[in-house]
């Protein structure tokens, strides 16, 4: 809401020396953030005078038509200026900058030769004066004395505050509301503009001829006031003072009748609408659109109505989208003679629905959505009628209203409960004063006050609502500081500790953490070859970009994109990882629950709400590319390969205290021959290996880049570790080299050897692999280390165990000792 200082001053007795900065701080202190302060006219210097157009000479020999204009600026001598605008005629009053004047942007006006003529000044547009964005033509004044100071006439010099009004404070979307807040913050006298309106002066000519009104849908409005005036001279121009105030508040001057409704809305906060009464058939009704399906609104858009749209209609058609925008058919024009002024207290959520459905947010709807003061319907409509009488020669016909009597809400407030919530004890006087400032009537002098809540504060309901008013008006800065301490035994959960350990360990091993957006495209999912659950993604209704409307089902797509970005910026050797949530649309969509919030939902409903949210797994994944050991003066480095990705998974699973099984597997986006699948307790929890060469080629990423992914949230929490006794007897080592078919995996062979070697086998380590034997065979060589708890093993005994191991391997996988 834009607030001109000149306007607010009418209702607040401000100290003479107060600065704009101090006013801004006063607003901030009570919860109204001043987003900007505009000093209008600060960089404007006269002379700027009212001039009358005496003659217009059209100069046609130039690229665009130019006028050479003779002006009477009150100096007795005709002054000639060149002007490019065309929106004026002889006898019009215009604003003339006399040489020596300086316009905003340090634009100095001087006499100068141009278009072959001497131009002795300039006729100004509103934009050139810095008072609005209007630059379609020059200002044509509705009134003004020739030669008088236009800076004063146009009330240019002013300070305009742009104030953010929070959604619970609809009343502050007005000069009235903001003036009250400013007065409350500065503890100055406040004059309520609503109390200055004297509707008793409106004498009805013939009430029987006034347009009537009914509320057909009581959920849509509880107050409506229609005032009818006739004999309107709609051709009259809006006086300068009114135009200027409307412009300063960021709106445009349109026509006198519309300007009056907007002016009253800005001043009091009550949106008004002016109908051409001649168009109304029968009386007006507040109702739902129901059978009516169409309305062309003032912006000339034909709108398809929903049956539940709240509208104002007559017996034939819809005349306005209630509280949102009027209809074109009943628009007040220059020909209009009879006007019906509407002021209503609409249901905020009905108007919010209108506005949202039609994507039409107006000055009126913004106020009504935040709730308006029901008592204003009568006052504001009267004020607007009086202005039509005063400024457009109208005659008052009479009024019609509908709705329920406005309730004076009464509440009891315990000062103790307020002090208890804030943590500071407030005196009765402090509480009374604060409540009076916001317009409450306060009765009683004890610890419990009886309060009559003002009609413009529907937000004040609970004790906490009043506590906020008292706390903010006495200042948040006086509230003390205390530090409560929670429960003993607070700590991270096992999963939180795991997450930290995994991240820190990867970072210590040269991996860099990244946090990617979880938005992906179908193209990328297809390119990576995801199928099954990993291709079942959720789609956003309103994505940031149509290029990436899906939620990620896996971390690898984002990591590959980030890998590419780093490479494009010159990085060569990269190891990056991410820990994050993935979203898989694998369960049947359950209809979401929306229970009432006035009590705790039933246990069943709570379970249903929790169950309606899909399970979201936590992954850790990484990609590597380039050298893991850098080539330096010391020699060649070594490159990342599939085994680095696989061993990273082994480290992660082992670090969580879990055992795993590993096997080759074929799974996109990995290389079909270079992908490991890991199972813990029979459940697949991780994959690792080289990325499919086709994927790398299509994404323009380096060959042999590798990746791993572990479902952190699926790894069981480890049981308490029970280490075996450390044996101090000497170990005896035996090497075996075995030949097997090349499809036999190292882990299968190792498994057999372990079983065959018996309980005294302490460890087994693959130290050689030879694949050039031919005939589809390979050789794998292991070191077996044996140790007993109670004796030094003899070589004969160990040789026996070794032979048993070989025997087992022969039986299981057809291994034969290499000779």
């Amino acid at each position, binding site marked *: 809401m834009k607030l001109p200082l000149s306007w607010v001053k009418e209702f607040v007795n401000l100290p003479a020396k107060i600065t704009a900065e101090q006013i801004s701080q006063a607003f901030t*202190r009570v*919860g109204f*953030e001043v987003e900007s302060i505009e000093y209008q006219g600060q960089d404007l210097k006269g002379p700027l005078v009212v001039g009358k157009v005496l003659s217009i000479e059209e100069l046609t020999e130039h690229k665009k038509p130019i006028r050479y204009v003779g002006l009477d600026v009150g100096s007795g001598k005709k002054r000639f200026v060149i002007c490019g605008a065309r929106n004026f005629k002889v006898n019009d009053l215009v604003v003339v900058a006399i040489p020596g004047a300086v316009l905003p942007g340090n634009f100095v006006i001087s006499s100068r030769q141009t278009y072959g003529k001497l131009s002795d000044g300039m006729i100004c547009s509103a934009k050139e004066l810095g008072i609005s964005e209007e630059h379609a033509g020059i200002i044509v004044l509705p009134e003004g004395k020739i030669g008088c100071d236009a800076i004063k006439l146009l009330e240019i010099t002013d300070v305009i505050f742009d104030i953010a009004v929070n959604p*619970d404070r609809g009343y502050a979307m007005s000069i009235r509301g903001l003036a009250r807040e400013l007065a409350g913050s500065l503890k100055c006298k406040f004059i309520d503009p609503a109390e200055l309106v004297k509707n008793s002066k409106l004498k009805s000519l013939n009430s029987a001829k006034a347009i009537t009104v009914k509320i057909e849908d009581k959920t849509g409005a509880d107050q409506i006031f229609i005032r009818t005036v006739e004999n309107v001279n709609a051709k009259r121009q809006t006086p300068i003072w009114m135009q200027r105030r409307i412009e300063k508040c960021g709106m445009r001057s349109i026509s006198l009748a519309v300007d009056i409704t907007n002016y009253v809305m800005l001043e009091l906060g009550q949106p008004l609408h002016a109908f051409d009464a001649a168009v109304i058939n029968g009386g007006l009704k507040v109702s739902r659109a129901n059978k009516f399906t169409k309305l062309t609104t003032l912006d000339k858009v034909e709108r398809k109505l929903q049956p539940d749209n709240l509208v104002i209609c007559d017996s034939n058609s819809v005349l306005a989208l209630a509280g949102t925008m009027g209809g074109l058919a009943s628009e007040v024009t220059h020909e209009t003679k009879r006007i019906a002024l509407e002021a209503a207290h609409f249901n905020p*959520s009905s108007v*919010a629905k209108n506005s*949202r459905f039609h994507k039409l947010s107006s000055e009126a709807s913004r106020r009504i959505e*935040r709730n308006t003061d029901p008592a204003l319907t009568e006052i504001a409509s009267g004020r607007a009628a009086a202005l039509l009488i005063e400024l457009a020669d109208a005659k008052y016909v009479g009024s019609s209203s509908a709705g329920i009597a406005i309730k004076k809400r009464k509440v009891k407030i315990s000062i103790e409960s307020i002090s208890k*919530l804030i*943590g500071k004890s407030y005196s009765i006087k402090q509480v009374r004063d604060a409540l009076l400032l916001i317009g409450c009537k306060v009765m009683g002098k004890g610890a419990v006050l009886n309060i009559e809540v003002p009609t413009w504060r529907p937000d004040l309901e*609970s004790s*906490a609502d009043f*506590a*906020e008013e008292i706390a903010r008006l006495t200042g*948040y800065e006086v*509230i*003390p500081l*205390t*530090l*409560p301490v*929670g*429960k003993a035994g*607070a700590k991270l959960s096992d999963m*939180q500790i795991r997450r930290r350990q995994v*991240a*820190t360990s990867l*970072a*210590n091993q040269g991996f*860099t*953490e*990244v*946090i990617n*957006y*979880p938005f992906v495209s179908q193209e990328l999912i297809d390119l990576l070859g995801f199928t099954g659950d990993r291709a079942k993604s*959720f789609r*956003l*209704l*309103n994505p*940031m970009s149509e290029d990436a409307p899906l*939620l990620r089902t896996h971390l690898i797509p984002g990591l590959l994109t*980030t890998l590419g*970005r*780093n490479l494009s910026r010159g990085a060569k050797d990269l*190891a990056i990882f991410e820990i994050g*949530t993935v979203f898989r649309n694998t369960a049947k*969509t359950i209809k*979401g*629950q929306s*229970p009432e*919030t*006035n*009590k*705790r939902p039933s246990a069943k409903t709570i379970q249903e709400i929790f169950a*309606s949210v*899909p399970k*979201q797994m936590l992954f850790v994944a990484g990609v590597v590319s380039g050298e893991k*050991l*850098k080539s*330096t003066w010391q020699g060649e*480095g070594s490159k990342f390969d599939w085994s680095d990705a696989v061993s990273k998974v082994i480290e992660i699973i082992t670090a969580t205290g879990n055992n795993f099984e590993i096997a080759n597997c074929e799974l996109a986006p990995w290389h079909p021959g270079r992908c490991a699948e890991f199972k813990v307790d029979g459940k697949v929890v991780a994959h690792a290996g080289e990325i499919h060469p086709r994927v790398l080629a299509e994404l323009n990423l380096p060959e042999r880049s590798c990746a791993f992914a572990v479902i952190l949230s699926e790894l069981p929490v480890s049981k308490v570790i029970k280490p075996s006794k450390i044996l101090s007897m000497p170990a005896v080592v035996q090497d075996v080299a075995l030949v097997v078919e090349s499809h036999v995996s190292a882990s299968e062979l190792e498994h057999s050897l372990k079983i065959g070697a018996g309980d005294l086998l302490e460890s087994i380590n693959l130290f050689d692999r030879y694949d050039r034997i031919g005939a589809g065979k390979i050789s794998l060589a292991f070191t077996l280390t044996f140790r007993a708890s109670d004796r030094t093993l003899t070589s004969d005994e160990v040789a026996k165990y070794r032979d048993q191991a070989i025997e087992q391997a022969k039986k299981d996988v057809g291994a034969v000792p290499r000779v």
Partner: protein
Amino acid sequence: MALDKNQIELDLKSALSEIANTKNFDSLKQVKIDHLGDKSPLARANQSLGSLDAKDRSDFGKFIGDARSQVNEAFRKKTEELESERDVQVLQTERVDVTLAKPRTLEGGLHPLTILTNEISDLFIGLGYNVAEGPELESEWLNFDALNIPADHPARSMQDTFFIEPLEAKLVLRTHTSPVQIRTMLTQKPPIYVICPGKTYRADELDATHTPVFHQVEGLVVDENITMADLKGTLDYFAKSIFGNDVKTRLRPSFFPFTEPSAEVDIFFNGRWIEWGGCGMVNEKVLIACGVDVKKFSGFAFGMGLERTLMVKHGITDMHDIVEGDVRFSQSFGVGKK
């Protein structure tokens, strides 16, 4: 062979002087043969002791023994001296340029948001708070309705929400971590002391200060006699822990549907007031929707953007650096630099 003390002394002198003049191990070896070997004058003199009578044998024996031990000692010292000289020389030839050494493995690092989250979690654990988490894809009821943000309230459009297809599923990407507060209150009984860090979403275009995917940390306390003064004290402690003891905090009246009274919390840091987050006393309507006994308990809540906190604390001027995943950014924070 007759023994002559003068001769023995001469032999001793000559031995000591040769040892003293020895410059290397080769001559030392010769000196050892000449003066300590079996055929050395002193050894021979010793060997001839047997031919002396008892008295002379004792007298000469002592004299010769003395001389020989002097030679032995001189030899031992010389050996040590030469060895030490040799060691110095050898180690000198093994000198390297230590500035050649550089890590050959990659430099890793945690994302600073992770580091900040850990720091905040630890500081609140110290105050007796647990760290609560919840899903990012969340039920609309938990994200809005339960927080006193009804469907048609303008506050609902304050936050540009990402909705999931189909609308009937009533699923959104959570716009704040507040649904975690609701989940906590629905599943636990007061006293409740939790912080809720996590990823949040709002449909804002990425620019220097905004990102559609960001992180928040929220705090929730529900206990007997919780006051706004408690909120102020907690936020001041929080701010000082993160930004240093010189930082000042202030509350400014504001509006959030889920708190009443509500406030913005500002910090005075590096010479200016900066908006840091939102806070307030938990709105009774929220407590009631979660079944908390409002006659017995009150609560406060607060929430901050972690990206914003990071930017203010470290003087980061462009959000792109935080979200783009350029490894140079995270690497500058290592695994936990302040």
